[in-house]
């Protein structure tokens, strides 16, 4: 009897904790949506309202012009384009190079394999700030444009991760597959390309997804390398430096609208691929 009751109370407490956490995690996002649907006058209301309300009579009053303004903002649109170019190229390159590397590290035997693996693992934790100044100097000396330099420098953090996760995946594939392909007269490259690579599809999708999200969200390199080239700014930089077309004040309604526009595709990705993302995120860490 008492045991059942404590069980019941425990359950309620548990759900309360879960609900509180969910609200805590989602609230900033909700507040941004709420603010993005307010006009400048509604944003200046004190106290701010939990739903967009009409300043005069307090009725609910949604304002959609922030969204149209965002899509007419040339800098934001350019930013979206740049982000797509940079993130897609980074993902493609790191999958290509990463799967080559992972095949070699996971399935072939060569001298210096263990050190290379450790080197790659330590690179996944390498702080970007530490190489910022050096990279900046290199890029200036080589006179590289901002977009290729972003793509190349993003490989610094996407490639080690891709290679690391893919390597453990390749290791898990049965060696008999390779051997039978060899018996049938396939070259190592054919074995890799025609037999093993299709089998690693799940890992490719997972690592590709994470590489894409990381490249899409990157800020430090993007900000630094586009300092003298504003047209190459990616979306995070565009949002961080967002200014309105006319008003002198920071247009927080539009900024919030832009923030929502950028976040929605990522949320869709998370919704569809959540299981894979979690698996990928924890892949390197737990087995460690």
């Amino acid at each position, binding site marked *: 009897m008492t045991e059942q009751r404590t069980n019941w109370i425990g359950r309620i407490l548990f759900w309360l904790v879960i609900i509180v956490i969910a609200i805590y995690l989602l609230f900033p996002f909700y*507040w941004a949506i709420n603010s993005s649907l307010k006009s400048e006058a509604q944003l200046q209301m004190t106290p*701010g309202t939990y739903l967009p309300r009409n300043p005069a009579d307090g009725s609910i009053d949604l304002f959609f012009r922030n969204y149209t303004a965002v899509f007419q903002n040339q800098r934001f649109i350019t930013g979206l384009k740049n982000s797509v170019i940079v993130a897609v190229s980074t993902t493609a390159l790191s999958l290509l190079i990463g799967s080559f590397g992972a095949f070699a590290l996971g399935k072939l035997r060569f001298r210096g394999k263990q050190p290379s693996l450790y080197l790659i693992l330590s690179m996944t934790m390498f702080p970007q700030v530490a190489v910022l*100044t050096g990279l900046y100097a290199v890029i200036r000396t080589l006179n590289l444009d901002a977009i290729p330099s972003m793509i190349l420098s993003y490989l610094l953090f996407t490639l080690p991760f891709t290679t690391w996760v893919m390597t453990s995946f390749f290791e898990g594939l049965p060696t008999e597959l390779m051997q039978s392909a060899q018996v049938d007269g396939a070259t190592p490259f054919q074995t890799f390309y025609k037999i093993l690579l299709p089998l690693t599809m799940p890992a490719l999708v997972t690592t590709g997804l994470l590489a894409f999200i990381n490249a899409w969200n990157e800020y430090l390199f993007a900000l630094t390398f586009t300092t003298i080239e504003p047209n190459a700014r990616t979306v995070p930089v565009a949002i961080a430096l967002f200014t309105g077309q006319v008003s002198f004040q920071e247009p927080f309604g539009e900024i919030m609208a832009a923030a929502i526009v950028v*976040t929605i595709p990522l949320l869709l990705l*998370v919704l569809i691929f959540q299981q894979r993302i979690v698996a990928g995120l924890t892949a390197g860490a737990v087995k460690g």
Partner: protein
Amino acid sequence: MRVGVIVVLVTAMFRAFGMFVGVRLVVRVSMRMSMIVRMRMGMRVVMLVPWAIPTAVSSRMWEWMFRDTRAGFFNILFQDLGLGNGQIPFLVDKAWQLPAMITIDVWKTTPFMALLLLAGLQLISHDLYEAADVDGAGRLRQFWSITLPLLRPTIAVALVFRTLDAIRVFDVFQIVLQQKRYSMATYAYYELIDGQRMGYSSAASVVIFFVIFVFAVLYIRMLGVRND
């Protein structure tokens, strides 16, 4: 130079708090999470939201919530709770800057930690808990004697990730505080871009690198994780 030292200290404090709050919160949450399977999916999506939003974007969302008038959420909240006059300048007042940054960083990174620890929890065999039940060990005892020791490697990894992340924190500081207060990374950035002092900025970067390195080694020693 003095600024540099202060910056190191600020980041250290920031790191310590952010990490402490993050880990504490997370151990509890993920303990609970491993118990219920059905809602895991929904919760997982919710937990991935802060992680998936670009830091640049979430920083601006929080910047808006920390506004110094009652248009900002926190001033509304504080006034509703009877604290402050609704005009607290969270991002200008020295005393409020770090708590604000920690709030943002904990929000942003706790989910990732929880997911890591959850993955670790799922590796612990259920038989152990059943055996403990048979032996009459209570929940708390089970947590201390089974969960915590077996979760140690995972906690170590999570701590390493979190510390390294917090030491090099850049996006939040640069966007929300600009030059009002530096983290080590934003200091290196402003020296490089605004100050055009490439050598000095490089030196700062190297210092950051060594601080991170020392912490990584310390942690791995401390928690007794060995490479197998």
